């Protein structure tokens, strides 16, 4: 399956929130939809799920107009809510039936996901009697009911403790392995980096970059070297290098120097200089930026 988001525009009143955004998601590869708070992630997802109707543009699934109600979709909204006063099993069964399952299958899938998240003892309890963490698990479980073909998760990691986050990451990974189409929004880069194959970065309603995460990292690290010292001062070394290589842009980041040769092919000369100056190196190699670095850099460029 291939989901295409094509030139989506959406305004609320006079204010345009999405300025013609486009990107693609393919099944078997998890897509991380990144952006700061208020960047337009949830609005995009709500348009995709037909909670909001976009002003222009379209969502296509395998070339056809995407109608979410015709597909088996697991959806986790950003603002999660369920019936506080109703029992856990009853409402999960209800949600499964609303999405097309018959009573027997709905019960089966509800039992499965409650047990999967280790909440078998709470099936007959009212949701409000569960701890906040367990309530979150139930809310997440509802997105997985009925073996959905498409998973749309809005900020799924928000509020999860590390153990639950790991369980959730594994679950998403399994869905991806099964060839499902998975898209989730987040501003927590580490989770996205661990789970996603593709990323799309949105900022103030514009897509800043989209594509294969590894390729993006390579591209963003092109012409850049990274070194760290076993002995000596990074600040002093930075000044020496700046004096010796005027065309190299040097940045001090997290106990290391990032040397951007800016297409000048000075790598060999740099290595020679470091050897001649007998700099005590801990590491020296090609620079691969983290997703956080890329995010900060890209958003910074457009701030």
């Amino acid at each position, binding site marked *: 399956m291939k989901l295409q988001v094509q030139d989506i525009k959406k305004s609320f009143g006079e204010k345009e929130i999405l300025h013609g955004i486009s990107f693609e998601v393919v099944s078997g590869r998890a897509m991380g939809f990144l952006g700061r708070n208020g960047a337009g992630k949830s609005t995009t997802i709500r348009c995709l*799920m*037909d*909670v*909001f*109707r976009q002003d222009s543009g379209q969502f296509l699934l395998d070339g056809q107009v995407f109608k*979410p*109600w015709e597909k088996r*979709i697991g*959806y986790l*909204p950003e*603002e*999660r*809510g*369920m*019936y*506080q006063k*109703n029992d856990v099993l*009853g409402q999960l069964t*209800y*949600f499964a*039936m*609303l*999405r097309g399952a018959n009573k027997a299958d709905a019960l089966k899938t509800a039992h499965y996901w409650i047990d999967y998240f280790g909440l078998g003892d709470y099936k007959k309890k009212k949701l409000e009697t569960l701890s906040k963490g367990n309530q979150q698990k139930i809310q997440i479980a*509802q997105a997985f009911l009925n073996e959905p073909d498409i998973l749309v998760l809005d900020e799924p990691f928000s509020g999860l403790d590390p153990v639950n986050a790991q369980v959730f990451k594994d679950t998403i990974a399994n869905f991806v392995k099964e060839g499902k189409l998975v898209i989730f929004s987040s501003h927590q880069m580490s989770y996205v980096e661990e789970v996603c194959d593709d990323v799309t970065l949105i900022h103030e309603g514009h897509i800043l970059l989209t594509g294969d995460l590894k390729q993006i990292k390579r591209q963003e690290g092109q012409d850049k070297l990274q070194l760290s010292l076993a002995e000596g001062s990074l600040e002093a070394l930075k000044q020496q290098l700046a004096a010796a290589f005027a065309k190299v842009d040097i940045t001090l980041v997290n106990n290391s120097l990032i040397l951007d040769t800016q297409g000048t092919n000075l790598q060999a000369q740099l290595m020679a200089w470091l050897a001649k100056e007998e700099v005590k190196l801990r590491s020296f190699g090609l620079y691969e930026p983290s997703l956080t670095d890329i995010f900060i850099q890209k958003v910074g460029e457009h701030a």
Partner: protein
Amino acid sequence: MKHFLTVFRYELKTQLLKKAGIVAMVVMMVLALAGTSLPRIIALFDTDKQAAVEETAPETAAKIAYVFPDEATKALLAPVTGPMPLVMDLREDLVKALQEGSIEVGFVVTADLGYEAIYQDRSMYDTRDSDFAAALSRLKKEQLILSHGLTTAEFNAIENTQIKGATTVLGKNSGTTYWLSFILMLMVYMIVLLYGATVSSIIAREKDSRTMEILITSTRPSALILGKVAAAGVAAIIQFGMVVLTAYIGFQINKSTYPEMIVMMVSGTLTTSYLLTFLFFSFFGFILYLFLYAALGSTVSKMEDLGSATGLVQFLFIFGYIMASIAAQTPNSSLAVVSSIIPFSAIMVMPMRAGVITVPWGQLLPAGVLMLVFVAFFAYLSIKIYRWGSLNYGNKTKLSRIVREALRREGR
């Protein structure tokens, strides 16, 4: 249809299993049984009271004293005072006895059979003075009858001369049908307010807790709204049906103890034509109001705003109640006729009119058709507003704008 049934079953189960609802229903059933058993209960107490009165009569009699002008008057009043009345010579003696508490009431009788009743303290329910006055009056009347050469029996025969006549009511006799119609109207009033508030709060709570977003992305809004309204309607029928059934059983059990007038009142009101009119207008009017409540419940973002949002519909409904009260007095007035055709008031006005008069088909049919059209339109509108509500949180929006925006939105 499948999703409608899913929503319907889930909502119905949730409503019927609510503890507060069960308790309220049981309380109402007990009240219905007690209410319909009231004549029997009153009869039980009346017997006791009568016995008590009989037992205490001599004692009570002893607490009354008399002052007579002469022995002849005393003898004349013997049927009223009893053979051995407590007699005092002077009014002052009587007053003294009252002040000392040895008697409760004293009567100073004059020669022309006039009297003065004297109490130290008189309770609200004391009727001894008026009873004495009535007895004196009867005695004096008998004296007058005798003075005209008639016996009492002859006089009574003249006074009780019967005229042979009959009253034929071709339609309804509002004297007998008014009260039951009024009670049924009150029941409809309670049901609409109770279950209307339930529906609007269910929807507002779903929105407040953000459950609505999961629901709206899981199935069609029409299935959600229709399922919820149908569930509330059926829950009302089940719960109030149990109360009505209890009242009916209570009535049947205690029927023998009811005054004939009440039995006639019930059987005179509950005709097939009245019941059909009542059921049609009450049921569809109820559904109409449920859709209104559901739509307004969708417009609020927080539970605390629900009261002000549903104020308009409550105003409409109370207007209907006032119109029904007017229609009960003047069922053929223009106001009553018009308000029995407008669906918002027809829910109560038409059954009330049908209870006290025979409503012509020329009014029943248009009112019925208009009611069905309104139910269909407001069902559609409430689905649209519900869908609109799922997208709008925060700022309060004018109702006219909500309706405009809701109707403009295309798709599901």
